[in-house]
């Protein structure tokens, strides 16, 4: 089965892209990965439509985990997940983990073929250490 996908959502497109660069370099290319950052006007913030599009780009039938930074990034990601189609919605989980470390740990776990629940749990446990 395909690896779980990883989506990175930050208020800042630079942070999101930088975190994605770290995942690519430290974990490699085999994990589906997408990032998004910035509000609909291009300022700091998040954009529900762009988050939905990032989930689509990182889509895996094994599921997708979403790493978010602050407040609105989480609320907008929850909203984006609810607006997905019925067959996808239940396979996307938000991780309660720091965005950079969480993305790298989640992608490492995903590359090993773990389930979406295990990928989330590993990212969250790392952050709780």
């Amino acid at each position, binding site marked *: 089965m395909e690896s779980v996908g990883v989506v990175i959502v930050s208020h800042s497109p630079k942070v999101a892209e930088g975190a994605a660069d770290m995942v690519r370099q430290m974990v490699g290319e085999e994990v589906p990965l997408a990032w998004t950052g910035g509000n*609909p006007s291009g300022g700091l913030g998040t*954009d529900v439509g762009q988050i939905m599009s990032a989930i689509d780009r990182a889509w895996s039938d094994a599921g997708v985990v979403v790493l978010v930074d602050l407040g609105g990034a989480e*609320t907008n990601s929850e909203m984006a997940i609810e607006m997905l189609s019925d067959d996808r919605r239940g396979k996307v989980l938000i991780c309660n983990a720091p965005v950079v470390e969480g993305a790298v740990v989640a992608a490492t776990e995903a590359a090993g073929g773990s389930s979406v629940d295990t990928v989330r749990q590993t990212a969250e446990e790392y952050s709780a250490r």
Partner: protein
Amino acid sequence: MADVLIEQLIRAAALAVIRDADELTALDAAIGDGDHGINMKRGFDAVLADVANLSAKPWPDFLKGVGTMLVMKVGGASGPLYGTLFMALGKDLPMEPGRDDLIRAFRSAIVAVQARGKSERGQKTMLDVLIPVAEALEAGRAEIGAITLAAHAAADATIPMKAVRGRASFLSERSIGHMDPGARSSALMIEAIGKVLEKA
């Protein structure tokens, strides 16, 4: 087909937020990330641009359309929160709602916002305005001026509160002494809606 009233109500609410966008941003700069007015203006500008299309729809679809637009355009946490409010308002309404239907839908919409924001009354948010207004309506109060005053008093009452949700919660004690920008935008919309209803 939605009647003219719903379009007038949404237009008035949108224009009130857009008019006072700078004030909302200034309130947010004190305790949040300083973009509430900017974000709300972006969302409600988009609503106004689409309101003529939406007005061909019945009340439930009109309100869901407004909510979806806010979710997609606002950008900050207020997008999903206000978007959920309008979407949930539309969800439970019959095609031609009466006063009781609207009051009931308003309460369901508030419950949906509480779930979306994982928040309750007393946490220095828009809920601190919406809940007292819903209670006044449910108690049968019909005098529009009094409802508007209650909404503004409720927004003022967020000033001494300590934020526990959202960006303002990082400030903890330092959030005390500032009005919550979401409470203010809710009060402004209620005032604008009241003015339309007084003339209707």
